[in-house]
């Protein structure tokens, strides 16, 4: 399982685009990059997953450079309701005893009015 590093916290203002970067220098060939959002007292919510280049859905975009050693979650035009903790996970779900799914501490994003 690739170790990930992401900022502990970030502040931004409503209406701005927010980019959260995750470093994963030892990403393996079969690993995917997955992002979750979590609000207080709720379960994490799957946002987006990608393997290379760019993935976009109705919630966010995920940019992955060619070397795949980092990735950037991009949230367009954030609102106050985007205040949450964002987790970056990197790995391949093997579903055996060697699987180590580690959420880490995530990035605490605070959106200001």
């Amino acid at each position, binding site marked *: 399982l690739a170790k990930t590093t992401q900022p502990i916290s970030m502040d931004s203002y409503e209406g701005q685009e927010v980019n959260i970067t995750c470093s994963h220098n030892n990403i393996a060939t079969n690993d995917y990059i*997955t992002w979750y959002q979590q609000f207080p007292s709720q*379960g994490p919510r799957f946002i987006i*997953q990608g393997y290379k280049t760019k993935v976009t859905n109705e919630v966010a975009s995920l940019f992955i450079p060619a070397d795949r050693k980092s990735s950037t979650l991009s949230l367009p035009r954030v609102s106050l309701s985007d205040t949450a903790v964002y987790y970056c*996970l990197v790995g391949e*779900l093997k579903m*055996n*005893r060697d*699987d180590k*799914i580690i959420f880490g501490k995530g990035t605490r994003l605070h959106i200001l009015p």
Partner: protein
Amino acid sequence: DVKVTQSSRYLVKRTGEKVFLECVQDMDHENMFWYRQDPGLGLRLIYFSYDVKMKEKGDIPEGYSVSREKKERFSLILESASTNQTSMYLCASSLSSRGYEQYFGPGTRLTVT
């Protein structure tokens, strides 16, 4: 939409009681997971299951057991609850064998007194 439900949002039990936490998913997912989340420690994987009657230990299985008799249902059992098992318990399910795309339930906040 994937729906993962958990039997209780809040639960208070006494030390030594046997506790059952139930999780049901409605999307025919093969994989199901139990996590606990504690302040400062993040989400930690307790057990997971990739098929009916199959289970694998996660990072912190001690003091817990699981049961998966039907595909849609995954139960977490605390054989003899202790105060250090006071926590938020989160169930998740996934279909994909690539990456970590999981869908979480709302969580059960368990207090053991």
